[in-house]
């Protein structure tokens, strides 16, 4: 039941969504372009609204390890940062995945490498979707393309994280974090008052104690655990793929784009169709699991695919794997915080795919 309509920044929507989803804690450290999440939460006094804990940590390393501690208690924990800070969180994320704990991480991506720029970018796709930290693990990666989805994916992210006992990430960027749009807010969800049996809530008399660890010095056991993780990822790939197909039914050419670039691509589809080019757009909503099968099935009727990203070309590798050589795939992107224009994208399509 949707209740209130509000004009909000993407970052604020994340903060409000966390409170309303019944999150138990947020731990974070300031970094542009996402500091409004922590600022919004502090201003909202969530300890008074729901009893939610909000704490500014001494670093992103501390913040993600607070998340690790809180997640082990069976609580709903969220953290957010932007690219350099997310790099610092990788060891912690690996521990969380390796201990099979749920949590939600928001990456409001800025351009890199290094300190880079505070302008929006999509150059953290590899880090988000291919592991990021050490070891064979995956994050569930959600890519919103509107402020409404920034809001909605907080609840979705928590639900998936708890269902699969795996960290989930909202991979967004500075443009979506900073833009204002209207958002339908859902009713306040109560915080949990019962906790899963795997949570460290104190050893119950007569029951086994709970130990949360990612360590197993016995290689055979460690391999077995890894196999179990892989089974979980296969299940995610089978059941949780989400995407949006726009003008794809009669399409001869396809753009694949997520988040901010998918918004520009919608305009490119319009412009191309005005020129008589039958262009469609596939927008992955889950970047992991990637809509591999869906793109693979579609590519039989396509003449070419252009992957559009604000990066040097990262998702394009997954698009290529999806079509398995059956159709031409190329990449177009801008870097360093530059958002491509709709016209640029149509030009690139004509040059790289149609003309090429």
């Amino acid at each position, binding site marked *: 039941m949707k209740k209130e309509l509000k004009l909000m920044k993407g970052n604020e929507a994340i903060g409000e969504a966390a409170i309303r989803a019944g999150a*138990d*804690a947020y*731990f974070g450290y300031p970094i542009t372009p996402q500091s409004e999440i922590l600022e919004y939460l502090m201003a909202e006094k969530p300890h008074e609204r729901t009893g939610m*804990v909000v*704490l500014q*940590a*001494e*670093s992103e*390393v*501390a*913040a993600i*390890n*607070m*998340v*690790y*501690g*809180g997640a*082990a*208690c069976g*609580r709903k*924990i969220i953290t957010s940062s932007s690219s350099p800070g997310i790099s610092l969180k990788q*060891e*912690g994320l690996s*521990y969380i995945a390796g*201990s099979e704990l749920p949590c939600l991480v928001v990456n409001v991506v800025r351009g890199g490498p290094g300190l880079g720029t505070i302008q929006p970018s999509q150059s953290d796709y590899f880090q988000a979707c291919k592991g990021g930290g050490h070891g064979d693990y995956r994050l569930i990666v959600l890519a919103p393309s509107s402020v409404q989805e920034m809001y909605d994916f907080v609840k979705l992210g928590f639900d998936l994280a708890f269902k699969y006992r795996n960290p989930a990430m909202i991979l967004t960027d500075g443009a979506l974090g900073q833009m204002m749009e209207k958002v339908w807010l859902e009713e306040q969800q109560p915080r949990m008052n019962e906790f899963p049996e795997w949570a*460290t*809530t*104190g*050893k*119950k*008399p007569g029951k086994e*104690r*709970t*130990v*949360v*660890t*990612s*360590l197993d010095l016995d290689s055979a056991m460690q391999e077995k655990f890894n196999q179990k993780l892989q089974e979980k990822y296969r299940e995610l790939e089978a059941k949780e793929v989400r995407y949006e197909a726009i003008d794809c039914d009669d399409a001869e050419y396809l753009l694949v784009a997520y988040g901010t670039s998918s918004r520009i691509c919608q305009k490119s589809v319009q412009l191309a169709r005005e020129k008589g080019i039958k262009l469609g757009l596939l927008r992955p909503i889950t970047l992991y699991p990637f809509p591999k099968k869906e793109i693979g099935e579609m590519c039989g009727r396509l003449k070419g695919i252009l992957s559009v990203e604000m990066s040097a070309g990262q998702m394009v590798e997954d698009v290529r794997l999806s079509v398995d050589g059956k159709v031409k795939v190329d990449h177009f992107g801008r870097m360093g915080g530059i958002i491509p224009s709709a016209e640029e994208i149509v030009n690139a399509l004509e040059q790289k795919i149609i003309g090429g």
Partner: protein
Amino acid sequence: MSQQTENNDIVKEENLVFKKTNVLLDKVMHYCPGCGHGTAHRLIAEVIEEMDIQSECIGITPVGCSVLMYNYLDIDMQEAAHGRAPALATAIKRLQPEKFVFTYQGDGDLAAIGTAETIHAANRGENFTIFFINNGIYGMTGGQMAPTTLPNMKSSTSPYGRDVKMMGNPLKMTELVAQLPGSYYVTRQAVHTPAAVRKAKKAIRKAIENQKLEKGLSLVEIVSNCNSGWKMTPLQSNKWMEENMFPFYELGDLKVDGGMAK
């Protein structure tokens, strides 16, 4: 056989002078014979039993020799990333303030890689307990120099002795923590003699009981030996510890009930 019968006659409740606490599981510890970790574990377990808080405790193990402490204590435990135990404990205690939360950390864990987490948890006045085992060396990884390694002390990465000009000075984290307004009880103990064990146990109990007061962080440093890392017999290592570690890491209370002791 007759010997057995005789023993059974003696093993009576009223004759018992020592009984292993139930909070300690029946498992062979992996520690080197002579190491202080086992004694420190036992004291914490005994205090948990005596306070009757087994079902209310959550302990955090570090990365270091004591990483497997969760195999020995019959309480809920979580294994942290190297140095980050105070960050985990911060969240756990804030989410479950009615529980007793402690970290157990080595000197590399607490005073090198985890310096920021230790200082900031203390400075925020987090209401949990830190047990800090200072053996002056990285035990688990094979005897490398620790932030606490004494000047001129040999380790595998200071094979000619710690040259403070080149390698820096040993760090007294406990003194640093005592300076911070958020710490409430800070003490330095040892577990190498029966007298020291008795004192250490009192300190451990006080450090856990303090959580009921909600007055801030309690930290118990235990200066300990690492006979294999120091390349000594257990007896030699205890003597060496008394002669070299104690003059530098002076035993006793640094801060009691929020006030500086010295």
